[in-house]
């Protein structure tokens, strides 16, 4: 039983104590020792005095620990000349082989560093401690991207290790102007986040704002960039994402070179890029890797797909229910024939098929790959062919739902595609209630709402609305020779607009 007892809250403010017993008592209070069995506390003698090393099993490279730390310390002969107050600096400079060694200040720092995989060395009669970085976090190797696949271009994706992700960006952007700031985010369980930007390219006001927002996050626990994104974006209630989430280091590097900043966090294979406009969510990485004609054509197809995805079900219901005179007679009669035996209203029919489609989509995301083929059978046969045969849905509606779904899949950003699915339902109901009048009114409101949005001060639909000078790579993929070099939110020399 130790002679010293500290509560967890008071011990965090303390600096390392003079005796190893006291230090051990402090650590016991923080880490709930001896119940907590993966926190390793080893006592040993070195140079004629006692020492203690503390680390978490599994987070530290034990081979390096024994080679670079334990062996030189334990094998050492007694060194009588070293005074107790000089022991730490002696060990740091003359004994240890480990390269990243620094001195600890409080138990708060000590606890955080131990949790992040650092070893802490305490020496008897020394009111100091040493951090020794021998981390060996379990992480997967750099692999292909899962959600942002491209035909042309790099196939590397981020992993769950912050250091690795930073180095992947640095590999793509070899400039001395690239700055990486590390910030602890969250109130209790601090998560390491890196904010990266290119000096003289990214506007300092934008970086300041991003830094301020990151530091003001008060959530107790943050796991991954998804939560950070929701906490720092300008319009948390909007259906449109305002910070681009990418798993591609080359895309993050391209964004950085165009004046965006990137936020990376430990344990997340994504980078957050801001400020982002709506066009960032519509562009794919390989648009730039293709010849400009192909890139423009692909973008045009994508925009058509998005429009179909957003409007087709709403337009179908509006045209068939309210504006049948706008349809050619042949088409109108074939729709009427196809629907003759369907017992539901058009709205009910669309909602049923939309729900079925969303079910298949969601199931496809969650289902284990081994039984994935079963989903195809269910989707194609049961919900397609069988629904028509059972007169639950008309064949033309199956085509409409299929085109709508395909249109949704061409959206490069998953977050935007979900937002547009919700907007599609809103437009569907507007069309069902008020026909084209309702659809146009809904589109009017959506455009107003989108145009009033900002991402870290940059208007969300710029450079289109409000019109801004700068890189015109918006809808058309212009030839590289015609492109203006700077995005509208990049740092300007001399002056800069603060509003739209």
């Amino acid at each position, binding site marked *: 039983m130790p002679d010293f007892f500290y509560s967890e809250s008071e011990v965090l403010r303390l600096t390392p104590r003079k005796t190893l017993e006291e230090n051990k008592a402090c650590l016991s209070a923080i880490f709930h020792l001896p119940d907590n069995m993966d926190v390793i506390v080893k006592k040993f003698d070195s140079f004629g005095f006692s020492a203690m090393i503390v680390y978490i099993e599994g987070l530290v490279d034990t081979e390096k620990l024994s080679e670079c730390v334990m062996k030189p310390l334990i094998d050492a002969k007694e060194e009588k000349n070293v005074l107790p107050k000089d022991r730490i600096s002696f060990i740091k400079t003359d004994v240890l082989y480990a390269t990243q060694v620094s001195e600890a200040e409080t138990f708060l720092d000590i606890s955080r560093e131990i949790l992040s995989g650092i070893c802490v060395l305490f020496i008897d009669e020394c009111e100091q401690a040493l951090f020794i970085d021998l981390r060996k976090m379990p992480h997967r190797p750099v692999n292909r991207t899962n959600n942002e696949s491209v035909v042309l271009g790099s196939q590397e994706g981020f992993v769950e290790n912050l250091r690795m992700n930073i180095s992947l960006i640095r590999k793509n952007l070899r400039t001395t102007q690239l700055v990486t700031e590390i910030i602890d985010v969250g*109130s209790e369980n601090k998560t390491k986040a890196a904010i990266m930007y290119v000096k003289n390219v990214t506007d300092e*006001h934008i970086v300041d704002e991003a830094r*301020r*927002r*990151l530091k*003001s*996050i*008060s*959530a*107790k626990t943050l796991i991954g960039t998804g939560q950070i994104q929701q*906490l*720092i974006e*300008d*319009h*948390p209630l909007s259906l449109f994402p305002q910070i681009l989430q990418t798993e591609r280091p080359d895309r993050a590097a391209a964004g950085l070179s165009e004046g965006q900043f990137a936020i990376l966090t430990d344990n997340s294979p994504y980078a957050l890029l801001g400020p982002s406009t709506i066009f960032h969510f519509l562009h794919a990485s390989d648009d730039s890797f293709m010849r400009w004609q192909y890139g423009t054509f692909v973008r045009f197809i994508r925009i058509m797909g998005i429009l179909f995805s957003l409007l087709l079900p709403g337009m179908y219901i509006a045209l068939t229910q*309210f*504006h049948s*005179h*706008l349809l*050619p007679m042949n088409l109108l009669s074939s729709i009427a024939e196809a629907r003759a035996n369907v017992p539901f209203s058009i709205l009910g029919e669309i909602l049923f098929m939309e729900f079925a489609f969303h079910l298949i989509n969601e199931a496809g995301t969650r289902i284990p790959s081994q039984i994935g083929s079963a989903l195809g059978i269910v989707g194609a046969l049961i919900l397609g062919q069988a629904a028509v045969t059972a007169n639950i849905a008309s064949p033309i509606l199956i085509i409409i739902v299929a085109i709508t779904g395909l249109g949704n899949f061409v959206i490069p950003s998953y977050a935007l595609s979900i937002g547009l699915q919700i907007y599609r339902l809103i437009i569907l109901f507007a069309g069902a209630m*008020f*026909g*084209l*009048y309702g659809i*146009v*009114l809904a*589109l*009017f*409101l959506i*455009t*107003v*709402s989108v*145009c*009033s949005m*900002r991402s870290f001060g940059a*208007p969300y*639909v710029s450079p*289109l*609305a*409000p*019109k801004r000078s700068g890189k015109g790579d918006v809808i058309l993929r212009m030839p590289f020779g015609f492109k203006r070099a700077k995005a509208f939110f990049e740092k300007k020399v001399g*002056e*800069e*607009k*603060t*509003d*739209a």
Partner: protein
Amino acid sequence: MGVRWALTKNQNTEENEEITHFPMCALTLVAVITRIFYLIVIDTPETENSGWLSVLFGAALSLPAVISAYFLMKKNDSSLETGACKAIGKAGFRFLCLVISLALTYETSALFTILTSSGAYATLYNTHKLLLLVPTSLAVIYACTKGGNGIGGAAEVWIRIYIILYAVILFLEYNTMNASNIFPIFGPGARSLLKSAVSVMMYYCLIPVSFLIESGYSVKGRGIHKRIKPESILLVFLLCVLITTALLVIHSMMYPSLTLTSIKRSAGMDLMLSNGRSNRTVQLPILIIWFSSLALSSGYMLFCAGRLMNKALSESGRKCMFLLGMVSMVIALFRLSGQERAVRFSACFGPFLSSAFFLLAFFYIVRKKG
């Protein structure tokens, strides 16, 4: 401590009442062109296929007001408000803002009426107009409270959509256009054309009103507040005149003259929105342009009314927009902004607005000399 969003309280709302250069110009273009086009095509079908001449006459009549506004901006560092205050004093300027604001509130209600009437005509024959008016009004009020740059930005986006849709219309109607439809040039006679030109004048005089509410933008770190160049007012005016005239000429070439038919709004609506003589396929883009441009114009009128009321009473612009929007809805609900009243109102208010800007410049010169 719980989780909260990392934004400061007013980070996104502080600029909501402002409208800057491009959004303001785009919104003005859409609203003025739309309103004049519908005034000629729907509200005054007696101009027949010579309505485009009324547009030109109206432009000539409103030119003194536009030039006066240009003069005041030129003399006052691009600030029309400063010029107006110097001419008639702060109290006089506030009174003028109040009058224009109330007039635009009425105009908003006229647009609500056109919008709901055309909605009912083209889509919802059996729906009570109240059920159309309330969601329409609330949608426009909501749009205005999202800020000038929101609704102005939407106008910039829709202008691009209009260009594409209009190209589709021209492509589909290319074979049916007949240049002889615009003859005789003076159609119903100079008297009718001049009468509608006086109504047209009101909408051209809204261009200086837009420049009155334009807020400019600030330059960080230098303490500079940049304002729009005075020449822009002439450019916007010129664009409005040219585009409206061109649209009306093309419209006249598409349809034969509507002589000896009803002069009610339904006559024009029948021509454009129903099966009538219009191509079936072309009606889809026409309907989209129709509804959206009217919604944007209503938003413009309400936004201007709110901002002017804000200048007159120093109340919050958003609050003013909400209250004036509700007033417009009530006026439309009681059918006090129907076709005849709206045309008569614009015929009276147009000359008032034009002479008001002219007198501002006159008083400015007199005071400066004095």
